């Protein structure tokens, strides 16, 4: 378990934003997530794949008006993980001085 109860998969800023947006809705379209996170399609795909591999996100392709769209949604496990991650962040904020030593590793995972 990552330090302070933070979720290593959700921790990276782009994945945190993806989970935050998906937590408010059932599904969001790939293009919307790309626009709102401000990353390229390939970078977004990589982050979504990591979330999918962790069982946090499901990806679904749908053809509308002969155009294929990809929809992403948080799984129940993903919703629980995001809620726990936010709770852990709030705990860290409440004990702010103790949080000063938490750093980020090169792969985006949190560590002390």
């Amino acid at each position, binding site marked *: 378990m990552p330090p302070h109860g933070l979720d290593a998969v959700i921790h990276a800023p782009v994945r*945190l934003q993806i989970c935050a947006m998906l*937590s*408010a*809705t*059932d599904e969001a379209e790939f293009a919307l997530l790309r626009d709102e996170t401000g990353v390229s399609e390939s970078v977004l795909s990589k982050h979504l794949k990591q979330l999918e591999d962790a069982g946090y996100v499901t990806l679904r392709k749908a053809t509308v008006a002969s155009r294929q769209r990809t929809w992403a949604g948080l799984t129940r496990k993903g919703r629980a993980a995001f809620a726990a991650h936010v709770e852990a*962040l709030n705990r860290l904020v409440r004990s702010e001085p103790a949080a000063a030593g938490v750093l*980020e590793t090169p792969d985006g995972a949190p560590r002390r």
Partner: protein
Amino acid sequence: MTDDFEPRQALATATAARQRLAARAASPRWYAPLYGLGTGGIVASVGLPGPWPVAGSVVCLLFVAALYSVWKAKTGLSVNGYRRGRTLPLTLGFLAVILGLAFVAVHFGRDEGKAWVPLACGAVAAIVAAFASAAWDRLWRAEMTEQL
């Protein structure tokens, strides 16, 4: 790269992402009135005699489904009306009112032959549905803008 991790900043990033989504998810002005029209049509149809209950309900249900599809394509979002959260009491209350109106429409329209009752119930349902749709949209987006 080894950065200082700021939990406050992470929470702000997540909150800002949801707030941007809330701004983008606003329904167009025509959505609530058209949703009201479709819902009112369903309530009125079920109480009318002859072929109206089936034909009218199917047409209005397809209309409401098409309306949601347009909203979904426009916003790039999909959301369940029965989702948990602040919107759920509104959804359940709205359903109770609409089912009550449909019951009254069927009882007086089909059982007692008063055709004006389903039409009146449909008109009331249309107004209730339009306001409920707009209120649901506001509640949902307000929930998204809250600090995580």
